[in-house]
C-alpha cells in the first residue's frame, strides 16, 4: 500500500501548510520527550502493545472481517500479534486516520505504526523505522479486451492524439513512478482509495486507461475486478516498515528481532501467504532456515510461491452486497451514528454557552474584553475546523506538558473532538447572538434600565430571552451543520458515522448499499431538527404579526 491513500481533501491543503508550520515551531520550542529506553518497559508493564492503523485502507492490510465486521483481520493484524507475542504482551489495535498515525504516535497514544508505511529517507530522519516486513512492488493494470494497451510501451503512445491517463493514489510511489516514466507524456488521475482507482479504471471514468497499483492490493482485490488485467511484470520495489518514536530504540530493536525471527522461522511467510502476498521477491531475502538451522533455499513449494499455501485457505476480498451487507454491517453504522449524536449533543450546548458569553462580551463587556472577544471570533471563524482539532489533540497536550511538567495532563480524542467542535461553532453562535441582540429595539434596554434593573439583570430577563427566540432558527441550522461536521473528527482518531461508512463500504465493496444506509441515518438525525426549525420559524412569524 502506498502513502496517502487516505490523503486529506485538497481543500485542507492550506490547513496542512499551517499544521506543518505549527509543528516545526513546536519542534523548535519543545524539547523531545526524554523517554529513551523506557518504552519497552512501559509496554511490558501495561501488558499490551498498542499499534495504530487505519481500517479504511482495507485488504489485505487491516480490514473488518467479512464474516464478523466487528472484528479485524489482515496481514498486519497477524503481524502485530506476532510482534506483541515476541514482546510477551497482547496486541491492541488503535484506529487512526492513516496520514495522522505518526502524530498519534508522537502524542503517545500508540506505540508503533504498522500500516503499509514505506521506508523513505525523510521518514527515517524523523522516526524509528524497522527492517522491512514486506517488499512491495507496483503493478500496471489495464482493461480486459483493450488491445490498444498491452505493454508499457503502449502507455507512452497517444491514442487518437490524446495522451494516456493512469489512475493512481495521490502522492504515492505509484504516482512518482508514472511521473518519472511519462515525463509529461502520460496524464494522471489522482484518487484517494485503492479500490476507487481500480473501479474508475474498470469503468473508464474520466478517460482513465490504466491503473498503477500496489501489487498486494491487486492480488487481494483482483477477483473483485474481473475486467482488469495486469500489464507487464511488477516494477518499482520498496519497503513496508513499522514506525516507532525515534527515542524508543529499545522498542525498535525488539520489533526488528520479532520480524527477523518471523522471517527466519517462516511464520511471516505463512502469514503473507494467507493473504496471497508471498512471492519470489520476498523469497530473494533468503534468510528462512529449517528446523536444523539450514537455509531452506528453494524447498518452499512452488504452490506456496504462487500463493496457495499448504496450511489452509487464503484470505482475499469478499464482495458482499444487497440486504445481506446491510444486515451484516448496518449495526456497526448505527453504533457509529451513536457517536455522531453524542459528539453533537455534547458540543452544541457548549458552543451555545461560549457563543453567548462572547457575544455579550462584545456588545456589553468592558473595553478590555471587547477586543479579545472580537479576535476570538475572527480567529476561530477564519481557520478550518480540521486545524483546530489538530491543534487541540496533538499540540495542546505538548503545551500542557511544557507548562506543567510531570502533571500528566492529557486530552482524550473524544474530549478534544467535543472541544474543537464547541470552539469552532461558538464563533458562529456568537455572531448569530450578536445579530439577534442588536436587532432587539434599543427601547427594551432603556425600559429595563429605567425600571431599576442592572445591565446584567436586563440582559438576563429582557434582552437575551427575546434574542433567543430570534436566533433559534439559525441556531438549529447550525446544529444540523454540526451533525455533519462531526465527520471531520476522524482526523483525531474518533470513529463516527462517515468514517465507519468508508471503512465498511471499502472492505465490503458495497459502496451503494451502505452509502444509502449512511445517508438515511444522517437524514434520520437531521430531519427532526429541520422540522423543529420550520415550526419555530412559523411560530415566530406569527408572533411578529400579532
Amino acid at each position, binding site marked *: 500500500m502506498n502513502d496517502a491513500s487516505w490523503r486529506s481533501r485538497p481543500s485542507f491543503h492550506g490547513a496542512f501548510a499551517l499544521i506543518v508550520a505549527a509543528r516545526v515551531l513546536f519542534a523548535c520550542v519543545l524539547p523531545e520527550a526524554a523517554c529513551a529506553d523506557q518504552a519497552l518497559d512501559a509496554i511490558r508493564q501495561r501488558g499490551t502493545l498498542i499499534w495504530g492503523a487505519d481500517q479504511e485502507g482495507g485488504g489485505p492490510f487491516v480490514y473488518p472481517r467479512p464474516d464478523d465486521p466487528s472484528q479485524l483481520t489482515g496481514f498486519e493484524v497477524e503481524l502485530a500479534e506476532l510482534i506483541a507475542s515476541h514482546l510477551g504482551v497482547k496486541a491492541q489495535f488503535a484506529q487512526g486516520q492513516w496520514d495522522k498515525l505518526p502524530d498519534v504516535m508522537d502524542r503517545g497514544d500508540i506505540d508503533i505504526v504498522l500500516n503499509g508505511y514505506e521506508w523513505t529517507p525523510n521518514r527515517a530522519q524523523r522516526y524509528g523505522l524497522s527492517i522491512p516486513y514486506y517488499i512491495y512492488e507496483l503493478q500496471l493494470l489495464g482493461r480486459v479486451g483493450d488491445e490498444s494497451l498491452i505493454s508499457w510501451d503502449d502507455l507512452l503512445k497517444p491514442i487518437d492524439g490524446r495522451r494516456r491517463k493512469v489512475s493512481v493514489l495521490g502522492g504515492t510511489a505509484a504516482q512518482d513512478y508514472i511521473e518519472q516514466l511519462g515525463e509529461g507524456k502520460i496524464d494522471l488521475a489522482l484518487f484517494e482509495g485503492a479500490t476507487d482507482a481500480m473501479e474508475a479504471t474498470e469503468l473508464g471514468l474520466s478517460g482513465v486507461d490504466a491503473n498503477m497499483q500496489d501489487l498486494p492490493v491487486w492480488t487481494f482485490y483482483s477477483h473483485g475486478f474481473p475486467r482488469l488485467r495486469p500489464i507487464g511484470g511488477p516494477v518499482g520495489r520498496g519497503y513496508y516498515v513499522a514506525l516507532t518514536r525515534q527515542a524508543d530504540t529499545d522498542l525498535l530493536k525488539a520489533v526488528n528481532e520479532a520480524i527477523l525471527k518471523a522471517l527466519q522461522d517462516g511464520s511471516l511467510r505463512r502469514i503473507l501467504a494467507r493473504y496471497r502476498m508471498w512471492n519470489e521477491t520476498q523469497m530473494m531475502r533468503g534468510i528462512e532456515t529449517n528446523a536444523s538451522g539450514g537455509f531452506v533455499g528453494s524447498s518452499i513449494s512452488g504452490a506456496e510461491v504462487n500463493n496457495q499455501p499448504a496450511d489452509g485457505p487464503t484470505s482475499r476480498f469478499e464482495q458482499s452486497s444487497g440486504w445481506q451487507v446491510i444486515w451484516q454491517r448496518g449495526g456497526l453504522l448505527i453504533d457509529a451514528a451513536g457517536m455522531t449524536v453524542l459528539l453533537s449533543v455534547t458540543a452544541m450546548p457548549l458552543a451555545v454557552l461560549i457563543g453567548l458569553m462572547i457575544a455579550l462580551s462584545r456588545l456589553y463587556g468592558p473595553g478590555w474584553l471587547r477586543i479579545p472577544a472580537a479576535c476570538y471570533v475572527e480567529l476561530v471563524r477564519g481557520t478550518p475546523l480540521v486545524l483546530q482539532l489538530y491543534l487541540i489533540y496533538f499540540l495542546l497536550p505538548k503545551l500542557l506538558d511544557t507548562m506543567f511538567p510531570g502533571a500528566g495532563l492529557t486530552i482524550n480524542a473524544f474530549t478534544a473532538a467535543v472541544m474543537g467542535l464547541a470552539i469552532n461553532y461558538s464563533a458562529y453562535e456568537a455572531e448569530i447572538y450578536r445579530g439577534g441582540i442588536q436587532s432587539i*429595539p434599543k*427601547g*427594551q434596554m*432603556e*425600559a*429595563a*434600565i*429605567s*425600571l*431599576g*434593573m*442592572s445591565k446584567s*439583570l436586563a440582559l438576563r*430577563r*429582557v434582552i437575551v*430571552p*427575546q434574542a433567543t*427566540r430570534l436566533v433559534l432558527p439559525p441556531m438549529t441550522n447550525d446544529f444540523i451543520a454540526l451533525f455533519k461536521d462531526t465527520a471531520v473528527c476522524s482526523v483525531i482518531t474518533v470513529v463516527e458515522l462517515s468514517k465507519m461508512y468508508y471503512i465498511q463500504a471499502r472492505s465490503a465493496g458495497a459502496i451503494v448499499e451502505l452509502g444509502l444506509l449512511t445517508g438515511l441515518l444522517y437524514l434520520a438525525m437531521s430531519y427532526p431538527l429541520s422540522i423543529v426549525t420550520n415550526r419555530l420559524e412559523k411560530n415566530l412569524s406569527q*408572533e*411578529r404579526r*400579532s
Partner: protein
Amino acid sequence: MIELTGIVKRYQEHEVLRGVSLRVADGEVCVLLGPSGGGKSTLLRTINGLETFDSGTIRVGDVVLQATPGPERDKALAIIRQRVGMVFQQFNLFPHRTVLQNVTEAPIHVLKQPPDVAVATARRLLERVGMLEKQNVRPGSLSGGQQQRVAIARTLAMSPEAILFDEPTSALDPRTTAEVISVMTDLAAAGQRMIIVTHAMSFARTVAHQVHILHAGTIAESGPPQQIFEDPQTDITRSFLSEAAIA
C-alpha cells in the same frame, strides 16, 4: 424635590442643553413644552441617566447626580432609577411577557417583592388603568393606547416618587390618546409628581402646575399654565404658541 442646576450637554460642537436649571416640587406636575429639537426629551432623559450630560448637577431628594462618569454616578443612578419611573413614546413593553408579567417584572426582580405581593399590586394597578381584563395577553395584541396604559401601570408598580413621561401620546391616534390622557389626569389628581414632555397643549393646560418653554437648549419662560397660555412674557413663547395653534 427634583432640582436640575446648570445642565449642559453637547453633541460634538453642538450644544443641545445650555445650562438648564429647573425645580420640581413634591406633588407638582411639570410640563416641558417647546419646538422640536429644543432639547425637551434630552433634558428629561438626563434625569434617569439615559442621556449623559457635560456639566451641572441633578438632585433627586438627597441623591446628587454628577456629570462625571464613575462609580459615584453609577451608584446615584441606581437609586434614582428606583425612585423615578419613565414612560416612553414607543411604550417599550416587554413583548415576550404577558401584561401582568410586564408589571410584576421589576417589583419581583429589582425590589425582591414576594411574587404574590407583586401580583396583587399589579392587578390593582391594571384595574386602575382599566387593563385588568387583558392581564394574560401579550402586549403585541394590544392597541397603542392599551400598551401605554400598561406601561404606566408597570412604572407605578415601582411606587416612584416621580414619573418622567417622554411624549407619551405622540405615537397614538386621537381616540387612544384620550384614554391615556384620562389615566394621566387621574394620576395628577392623586398627587403623583410627574415631569411631562408633550405636544398636547390642552392637556398641558389642564394638568400642569408649572410649564417650562424649552427653546434652543435654554428655558425661555417658566410659569403656571395661565401665565404661559394667556399672558406669555416672551416672544419665543408667543411664536411657539401661535405655531402650535396653526398645527
